[in-house]
Structures are given as structure tokens and as C-alpha cells.
């Protein structure tokens, strides 16, 4: 039963949401759907209404969708004050106030932080500024890149073979544009799916005419006299001429504006409990600040209570709904955010999907189909349990493995299932790179204490 305090909050409280994108919008809709009648303010630094990002590297680059027309549909009217094109620059936790870049302040009784991530830029600024160098996170990025692709560049160079980089390369090839992809690791997608599946992605790319270079890093971008990019220098001393460069090196969490606020926010995101309540820097849970989406790190019971940061569309939606619900509920009525991680990508005509947390798995079994056919399901095991599955053009199996993960089903996968090939009876090492070595950055970050991890020892510092 809601207390009097909670009733008042629902009736006439003030809720501010910072970050007006997928998580921010879905949270606002949920608040209204659950009866919040007070004042709702949405603060977003982009000048646009909430829009959808996944099409930016797929339908948009394929010319199938207009980059400036990907606004998210509304589930309902939210009757909010919109502060678009204005960034939040600071937070006063004690006073319950968000500072804005235009000098204004917004007071709140409950705050939701959904500031997401941004693309990691090319580190050398003068080179990053060259004409023809792109990152891909916003619709403006996508509009600019799409224009260049249409203009028929001689060659596009993609730095980093994570999901986004692979999708860009795929769109280039489909439009007959020459493309080179450079990756520090041994194959594309290794940070997210491991080396075995990465090798399949590498074959797929090469078959489609991508000039894939692995185990190399880009050392410099070279411009011409007019300030346009013209060539890319690699660590193996080779030089590739290209007039478009797409920097696809993963992302940075938008938490700088919280520096000094006292919130437990940093480069890994904002830590929160399973109810989406943010921790302060002392590790104490706040009761009025909530987090959702790409910027959040939250513990998950199915994955040894590790703190997971997920850059997954479905997570942003589910976490936003849970956070919004919990913002206007008392203790026992609150829900935990225990969403099963799930992700999709589409490249070179293949539908790639995963459930669970692949980077947690040490071993992999191909349980349906075969990697040679590029139509398979791979199941990841960790300490004798199924923790994730990935499918290439085999979506219909994923739900089955999702249930297996939820049940803590044993690994190796015992029972003979449909389309199981004799050569796949034994698990193989999944071949994830050493997490301490930088790659383009996977889209799932595991961090934090795992109670099952007995190697963890606390060493006090000596003075």
C-alpha cells in the first residue's frame, strides 16, 4: 500500500529525467501510465525529439530510411516540459536540483538519469577534425555519413570491427563501395562473441569483398592541403588511401556532468541496485535518484550478481520501465530489473542475435547448424552452466536457450537437439581476448564483485 508520502509524490511531485532518448521517453510514458500526475521535465542535449538509433547503421545507410525521420513512436501522451538542446551540467543531490547549460535549474523529488553513451572519438583531435572522418551515434552523424556514401567515395575505412563497424562495412559493400576494416583483435566481434564466432564473421566479411585487416591498429589519419582525409596509416606500416573514415571504437559513458555530485558515477557508468536506484560514491543507495539504459551498471542475479553495463536497445526499454515504476512506489511494491540481456545485429544479409552474456562464457558449443554454413546456434558455458547463446540466421532457437539460461541448465549441452551435427559434440574454448587488453570495446561490460569468484582477494594499500 502506498504511503501518504508516496500518494503525494504521485499526485503533485516533481520528476526530472535527464537524457531524452529511448530510455528517457519510455520512462516518461511508464510514469504517466502508472498514474504519475505531477510535474514531469525531460532534459536532452540533442535538439531533437527522442529518436531511434539502431536504424542509423542499418536501414539509414542502406537508403531505406531517412536519417532525419527516425523519431520513436509514442506509446501515449506524456504531458511533459521538454528542455531540448540543453545539457544538464551538474547535480546537487542534497538540494535535489539539476543545473542546466543555459543557467537554469530544475528541482526534483525524483530524478532519472538516462544520459547513455557517446561514440569514442578518434583520440588525436587534429586528425579527428579532418573532413570525411565520422563517428556514428547520432542522427546527424548518420545523415553526414549517408551523404558521403551516396556521393560514391573511392574507399571507406572503418576503424574497429565491433557491431557498428561491421554494419557500416556491410552497408558500404551493399552499395558497391570499397571498404577496408581494421581491428586490433584477431577477428571482428571478438569482444562481444569471442574468437570462434569472430572467425565466422571474418569469413563473411571477406566473402563480401571487405578488405579486412586484423591484429593491426591505426597509427595516424593523414589529410590533404584542404583538410580532407586522404589516407590511413597502420601499425604494420601499410598505408590505405580512403576519403571517408568511420571511427568505430566503442563508447564513452556520459557521466562527466556528475563529477563532484557525490553520485557513484564514473567511466564505467553509474552503479545502481537491482531496483535502478543509484549508489552514491560511498556505495550507499540513494532513494530519489534512479538510472536506466546504456549509462547504468546494475547487478544481475542470473550472472553471479556481476554488475552489467549493457548497450542494448531492449535493456534501455526494460530498465526504463522498471526505474519509472520504482520511482513512484514504496519498498515491497518495487520490481527488480532482471532483464535477460538480448541483442541483434544485421550484416551482410545475416541476422545475428544473442541472449545472455557471451563474454562470460569460457567455452562454446555449436548446438544447431554449422559455422561453415553461417547458419548456427552457439551456446556459451561458464562453470558448468549455460550463460549465453548466439544465433546466425537461426532466431527461432534463441527462446529455447533463453529458458535454459534462466533455469541454470548444465553445460556442456547434453540432450541431442534438432540439427545437431556430430562434429559439435564437444565444447571448444570460446576464445575471448584478455579483458585487460583494449579492443574496440564490447557492448557488454562485466564489472564488479562476483560472490562466486574465490580468486578475489583484498590487498590493503601500504603507506
Amino acid at each position, binding site marked *: 500500500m502506498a504511503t501518504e508520502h508516496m500518494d503525494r509524490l504521485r499526485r503533485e511531485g516533481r520528476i526530472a529525467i535527464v537524457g531524452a532518448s529511448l530510455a528517457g521517453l519510455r520512462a516518461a510514458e511508464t510514469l*504517466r*501510465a502508472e498514474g504519475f500526475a505531477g510535474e514531469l521535465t525531460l532534459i536532452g542535449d540533442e535538439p531533437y525529439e527522442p529518436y*531511434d538509433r*539502431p*536504424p542509423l547503421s*542499418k*536501414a539509414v545507410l*542502406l537508403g*531505406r*530510411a*531517412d536519417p532525419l*525521420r*527516425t*523519431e*520513436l*513512436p*509514442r*506509446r*501515449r*501522451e506524456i*504531458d511533459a516540459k521538454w528542455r531540448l538542446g540543453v545539457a544538464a551540467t551538474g547535480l546537487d543531490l542534497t538540494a535535489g536540483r539539476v543545473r542546466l547549460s543555459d543557467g537554469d535549474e530544475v528541482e526534483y523529488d525524483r530524478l532519472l538519469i538516462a544520459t547513455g553513451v557517446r561514440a569514442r572519438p578518434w583520440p588525436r583531435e587534429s586528425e579527428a577534425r579532418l573532413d570525411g572522418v565520422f563517428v556514428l551515434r547520432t542522427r546527424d552523424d548518420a545523415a553526414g555519413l549517408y551523404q558521403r556514401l551516396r556521393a560514391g567515395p573511392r574507399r571507406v575505412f572503418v576503424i574497429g570491427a565491433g557491431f557498428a563497424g561491421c554494419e557500416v562495412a556491410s552497408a558500404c559493400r551493399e552499395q558497391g563501395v570499397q571498404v577496408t576494416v581494421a581491428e586490433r583483435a584477431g577477428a571482428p566481434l571478438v569482444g562481444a562473441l569471442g574468437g570462434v564466432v569472430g572467425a565466422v564473421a571474418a569469413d563473411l566479411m571477406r566473402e563480401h569483398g571487405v578488405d579486412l585487416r586484423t591484429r593491426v591498429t591505426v597509427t595516424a589519419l593523414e589529410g590533404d592541403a584542404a583538410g580532407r582525409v586522404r589516407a590511413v596509416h597502420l601499425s604494420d606500416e601499410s598505408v590505405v588511401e580512403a576519403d571517408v573514415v568511420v571511427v568505430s571504437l566503442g563508447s564513452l559513458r556520459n557521466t562527466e556532468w556528475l563529477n563532484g555530485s557525490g553520485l557513484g558515477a564514473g567511466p564505467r557508468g553509474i552503479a545502481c541496485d537491482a531496483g535502478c536506484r543509484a549508489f552514491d560514491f560511498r556505495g550507499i543507495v540513494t532513494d530519489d535518484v534512479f538510472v536506466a539504459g546504456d549509462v547504468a551498471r546494475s547487478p544481475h542475479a542470473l550472472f553471479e550478481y556481476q554488475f552489467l553495463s549493457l548497450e542494448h*536497445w*531492449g535493456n534501455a*526499454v526494460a530498465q526504463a520501465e522498471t526505474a519509472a515504476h520504482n520511482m513512484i512506489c514504496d519498498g515491497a511494491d518495487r520490481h527488480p530489473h532482471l532483464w535477460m540481456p*538480448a*541483442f*541483434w545485429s*544485421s550484416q*551482410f*544479409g*545475416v*541476422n545475428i*542475435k544473442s541472449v545472455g552474456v557471451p563474454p562470460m562464457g569460457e567455452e562454446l558449443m555449436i548446438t544447431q547448424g554449422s559455422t561453415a554454413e553461417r*547458419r548456427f546456434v552457439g551456446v556459451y558455458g561458464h562453470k558448468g552452466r549455460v550463460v549465453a547463446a548466439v544465433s546466425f*540466421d*537461426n*532466431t*527461432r532457437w534463441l527462446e529455447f536457450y533463453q529458458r535454459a539460461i534462466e533455469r541454470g541448465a548444465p553445460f556442456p549441452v547434453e540432450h541431442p537437439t534438432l540439427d545437431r551435427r556430430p562434429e559439435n559434440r564437444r565444447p571448444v574454448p570460446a576464445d575471448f581476448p584478455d579483458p585487460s587488453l583494449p579492443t574496440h570495446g564490447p557492448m557488454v561490460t562485466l564489472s564488479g564483485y562476483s560472490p562466486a569468484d574465490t580468486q578475489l582477494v583484498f590487498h590493503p594499500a601500504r603507506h
Partner: protein
Amino acid sequence: MRLVVDLNKCQGYAQCAFLAPDVFAMHGEESLVYDPQPDHEQRERLARAVAACPVQAITADGVDGHGAFRGPEAPDGH
């Protein structure tokens, strides 16, 4: 009209591509691509696709007559 497909849910049944081919298309064996803001003439076809998707993966607004989907400017009906 704005729409989004939850491609985690989507099973690639291609019902939508059959009913509204100018909005949805299959790309390869299983992947779906769609136009997130189709023209108004597509309204009826889009409404049919939304209703026909077996896993209810499509969310659209500006499509009348389909329960949950209201225009952005429509009054709050809850």
C-alpha cells in the same frame, strides 16, 4: 506516422513485409528492415501489419483504430 520494431522479439515471420511491402522488407533470410516514418498512404497497411505481427513486435503511432497506438498530440486517454 512513426514506428519501431523490437527486433529482439521479431521472429522474421515476414507477415508485415507481406502486408505492407513499402514499409517492411526482408533482408537476407531473417533480417527485417523498415522505414521508421512511412508516408500517410501506408496507414491502413501499416495498421494491418501491426495487428498481424504474431509476436507484437511493432509499435506505431498515428495509426488510428488500433487500441494502444495514439497520435503524439492525442489527449491522454488513460
